[in-house]
């Protein structure tokens, strides 16, 4: 049974509760005596708060209390933090504005938190909120990414609205490559701003027990331990050992629930202050306004190419919009998660990247599925197409010429890639996509009056975040190891505690498969516990496609320790020595004999170490009772998934409507534990990436109002937008972790935007920015027709 668990399409054990309506999300929790919170948010993108008058509202029916920025000051509640320090190229530290959980002086984006009304019912809280009078002095908003540095400074002391001006790469060597280049290819790119839109809106419930001084926060988090750490250490709400954070079932995250938000801090603080439970559930419009957004880069890139098609250098200048404040992972996303990946999976000997991160009066921008890597991949894959087109080369052949072929490979920027075979997945993808048959399909489309295009995208991402010593040396505020505890119960079943958090990824199944495989115990006897700081050891949460590579490896290591101890106990019980004991399929066997003990027997013996026949105690001298092991796994390197995606689109010339008609991809995620779950991850990533390429865009008007603040205006991908995706794999196992896994959660969102855009541009023959909405495509076609007429 055991060895077949790895690579098996096991149906998810967590599904039953969800399909029967028994999931328990934060908003489903009702506590005795709970009150309801409603946040008053800034309607202005930038304004001074002159006065907050709560007197009328306080007298409204049902109101328990109203907290404002003044309370935050009075009670010394600390501000929200940016957890990764970036140092500018001139050696100075990044500059950050204060980020109080409730503003007292100035509001900096529409949706910024001004006050919270707490009442006996949500309706009473909302009614009272209408009576709170906030007197604002409206200031000019800075909205545009590209012109933020030349706009009025939002914050005193932050010149040019510049958080940092950072660089990576060997500038001189890159300049030299460009000086020698036969051809220099230029490209300007926008990476559109997105709203993560997990289907479950954020929610928090705070509960304080005054007799024990215990504070509990139930919240929609991908990362409950980190939330507890930050709210304790930085916001100073409650000491860590008396503070419990529970992230129950969480309805999707995609990065947007990694970091504690102002609401989490305020709800925890408010519950403690009033001594009653406080519940807050975000409405979708407020989610649009106040969830951290993703992407938002403006980039100029140049590629140095030899006339034989070999790429010799890459030079990139990016302006990254951080929004109104520096959010938790906001500063690492456009730097270390982005720049090292701009060279893609190509052997480019010299590269340089400058990133200027700017503040604007928009919602904070932070990690969103892929975080930096989609931006990097979009850049390199678009400019590779541009270069091939300019040089009249086949876009597929041009890529192949430049692939890295030998491993391990030290890239010119940062990463040392352990394994991969890029030709293998690219060739397989071309076959899967029937690239050879494309010309005929294009002709068929043309016969119907439609334009057809094909686009390629190859990618590499750095996942399995991350070796602690490496990331802490470049500014991370925490180590990025992961923890696990594997706890046998006396009756032989197992509780597995992980610091990773599942909000759709299926850890309960995948992690149980690992344990079942390692320990030879049936899946049904394994329970995965996560999401509660009172239960498992400190963990670093789920993001950056890290859960399996880092968290799964910690579980694997803990299982190894269990086996180790089991061997010692079994040896003692079987009158042998640990070296003589083999462990296989859940049994400890004395080599070359029929003497054996099952792991269940060993667990029982460990917990009930009485007399066993001749043996006084099953435990050898010095061995403690119980069978429970903890492991912290700190990876030795990132893992490097890669893949090749091919997209085909058909465009209606009258309306500009683009339809993705074919999508084929071949990914190398290393070893697959559960291919069914992996496929699901790829599907979801593709939908988000195709959404970015064709539909989604967070649009602020010039006054800083978010125009796309509901599903009425923000175009979410729906079922009828997609063809059936064709998905296959290649496998070069990762060498950086014991499972050989690389991570699969973000790949679809990383690879697909350039695949789609390259296909659209191939079809229409002119450059176009994301999202390629029907109007933009129509406009591009019209401009082309007009200029052709002029030329004639």
């Amino acid at each position, binding site marked *: 049974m055991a060895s077949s668990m790895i690579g098996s399409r096991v149906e998810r054990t967590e599904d039953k509760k969800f399909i029967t309506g028994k999931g328990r999300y934060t908003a489903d929790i009702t506590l005795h005596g709970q009150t309801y919170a409603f946040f008053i948010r800034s309607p202005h993108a930038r304004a001074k708060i002159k006065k907050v008058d709560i007197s009328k509202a306080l007298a409204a029916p049902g109101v328990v209390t109203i907290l404002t920025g003044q309370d935050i000051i009075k009670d010394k509640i600390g501000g929200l933090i940016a957890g990764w320090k970036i140092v500018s190229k001139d050696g100075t530290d990044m500059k950050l504005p204060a980020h109080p959980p409730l503003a007292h002086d100035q509001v900096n984006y529409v949706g910024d938190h001004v006050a919270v009304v707490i009442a006996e019912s949500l309706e009473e809280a909302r009614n009272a909120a209408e009576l709170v009078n906030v007197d604002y002095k409206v200031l000019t908003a800075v909205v545009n990414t590209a012109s933020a540095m030349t706009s009025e400074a939002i914050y005193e002391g932050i010149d040019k609205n510049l958080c940092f001006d950072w660089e990576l790469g060997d500038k001189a060597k890159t300049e030299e490559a460009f000086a020698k280049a036969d051809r220099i290819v230029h490209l300007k790119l926008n990476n559109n701003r997105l709203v993560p839109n997990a289907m479950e809106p954020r929610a928090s419930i705070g509960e304080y027990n005054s007799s024990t001084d215990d504070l509990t926060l139930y919240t929609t988090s991908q990362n409950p331990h980190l939330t507890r750490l930050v709210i304790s250490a930085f916001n100073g709400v409650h000491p860590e050992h008396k503070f419990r954070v529970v992230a129950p079932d969480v309805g999707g995250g995609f990065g947007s629930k990694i970091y504690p938000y102002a609401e989490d801090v305020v709800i925890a603080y408010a519950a403690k202050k009033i001594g009653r439970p406080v519940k807050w559930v975000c409405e979708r419009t407020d989610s649009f306004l106040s969830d951290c957004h993703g992407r938002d880069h403006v980039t100029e890139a140049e590629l140095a190419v030899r006339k034989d098609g070999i790429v010799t250098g890459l030079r990139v200048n990016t302006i990254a919009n951080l929004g109104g404040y520096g959010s938790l992972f906001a500063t690492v996303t456009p730097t270390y998660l982005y720049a090292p990946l701009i060279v893609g999976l190509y052997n480019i000997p010299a590269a340089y990247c400058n990133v200027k991160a700017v503040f604007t009066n928009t919602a904070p921008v932070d990690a969103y599925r892929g975080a930096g890597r989609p931006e990097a991949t979009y850049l390199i894959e678009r400019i590779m197409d541009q270069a091939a087109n300019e040089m009249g080369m086949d876009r597929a052949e041009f890529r192949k010429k430049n692939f890295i072929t030998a491993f391990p490979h030290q890239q010119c920027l940062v990463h040392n890639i352990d394994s991969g075979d890029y030709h293998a997945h690219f060739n397989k993808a071309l076959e899967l996509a029937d690239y050879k048959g494309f010309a005929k399909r294009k002709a068929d489309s043309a016969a119907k009056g439609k334009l057809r295009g094909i686009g390629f995208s190859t990618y590499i991402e750095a996942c399995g975040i991350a070796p602690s010593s490496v990331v802490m040396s470049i500014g991370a505020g925490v180590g990025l190891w992961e923890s696990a505890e594997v706890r046998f119960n006396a009756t032989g079943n197992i509780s597995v505690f992980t610091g990773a958090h599942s909000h759709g990824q299926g850890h309960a199944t995948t992690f149980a498969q690992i344990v079942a495989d390692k320990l030879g115990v049936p899946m049904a006897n394994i329970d995965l516990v996560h999401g509660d700081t009172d239960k498992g050891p400190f963990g670093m949460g789920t993001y950056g496609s890290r859960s399996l590579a880092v968290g799964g490896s910690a579980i694997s290591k803990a299982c190894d320790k269990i086996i180790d101890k089991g061997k010692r106990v079994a040896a003692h019980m079987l009158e042998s020595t640990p070296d003589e004991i083999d462990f296989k399929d859940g049994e400890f066997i004395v080599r070359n004999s029929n003497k054996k003990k099952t792991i269940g027997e060993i667990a029982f013996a460990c917990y009930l170490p009485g007399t066993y026949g001749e043996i006084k105690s099953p435990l050898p001298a010095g061995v403690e009772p119980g069978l429970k092991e903890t492991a912290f796994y700190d990876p030795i390197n990132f893992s490097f998934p890669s893949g090749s995606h091919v997209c085909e689109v058909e465009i209606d010339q*009258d309306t500009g409507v683009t339809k993705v008609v074919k999508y084929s991809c071949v990914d190398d995620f290393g070893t697959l534990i559960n291919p069914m779950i992996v496929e699901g991850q790829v599907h979801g990533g593709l939908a988000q990436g195709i959404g970015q390429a064709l*539909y989604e865009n967070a649009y602020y008007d010039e006054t800083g109002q978010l*125009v796309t603040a509901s*599903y*009425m*205006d923000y*175009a979410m991908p729906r079922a009828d937008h997609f063809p059936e995706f064709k998905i296959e794999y290649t496998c070069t196992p990762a060498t950086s972790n014991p499972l050989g896994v690389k991570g699969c959660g973000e790949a679809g969102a990383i690879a697909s935007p350039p695949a789609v855009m390259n296909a659209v541009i191939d079809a229409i023959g002119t450059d176009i920015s994301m999202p390629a*909405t*029907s109007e933009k495509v*129509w406009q591009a076609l019209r401009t082309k027709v007009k200029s052709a007429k002029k030329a004639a």
Partner: protein
Amino acid sequence: MKSFNYHSASTVAEATGLASKASAYLSGGMTMIPSMKMRLASYKDVIDVKKIKQLHGIKVSSKSVTIGAATKHAEVAQSKEIKKAIPALCTLAGKIGDAQVRNRGTLGGSIANNDPTACYPSACLALNAIIHTSERKIEAAKFFTGMFETALKKGELIVAVEFSIPEKSSYVKFPNPASRYAMVGVFVAKHKAGVQVAVTGAKAGIYREKAIEQALDKNFSEKALDNIIIDSSDLNSDIHASADYRASLIISSAKQAVAHCK
């Protein structure tokens, strides 16, 4: 949502009797309930008219199709009688909102709301509908008076809508990519007396596109629209579509509608 008193009327007289300055009629509620939830609208009394028998039923004569105001979109979409007489009406109803909206939303509610991006008003205008109310009969051309505005007086209730049966007709909707309301919707109806083309989603309110009507009157074919230029000066322009793009969509949608007319 702010509190209100809910009344369920069982006759037209009961409904109109309950009506006041601070009341609203509730039918499917597909627009009204979200508006109240977002506190964009509030009422003292909400008068549910769905259970009024007179507001239900589909009658088809040789000249017209009369549909009760409380008839749901799904019922219209699936009606075999309507499909025989005016198939385009079934197509139109089958494209409103989504399946769940069509299971609740009603014809009367849609036209009383007169959302400039709603589908039904285009059918009313192109099919010379007569709106039967609790007080009178109003021609469609006089019914839709502006954005979210109609000729209905306070307390006046739509009872039924009577559509005249054309020789052939068709409706083509180009959905907004986010809301899926009509970014442009074109209803083409060929009557004995001439072609009528009503456009929704493109302006502040529903209107007839005379340039297309004239061209189709001369030659009822897609080709006839090849060189038509729509004046885009008073067309809507927003983040989803500029006025010029809408003008172009009107032509392409009209062409499709002509091609599918039956």
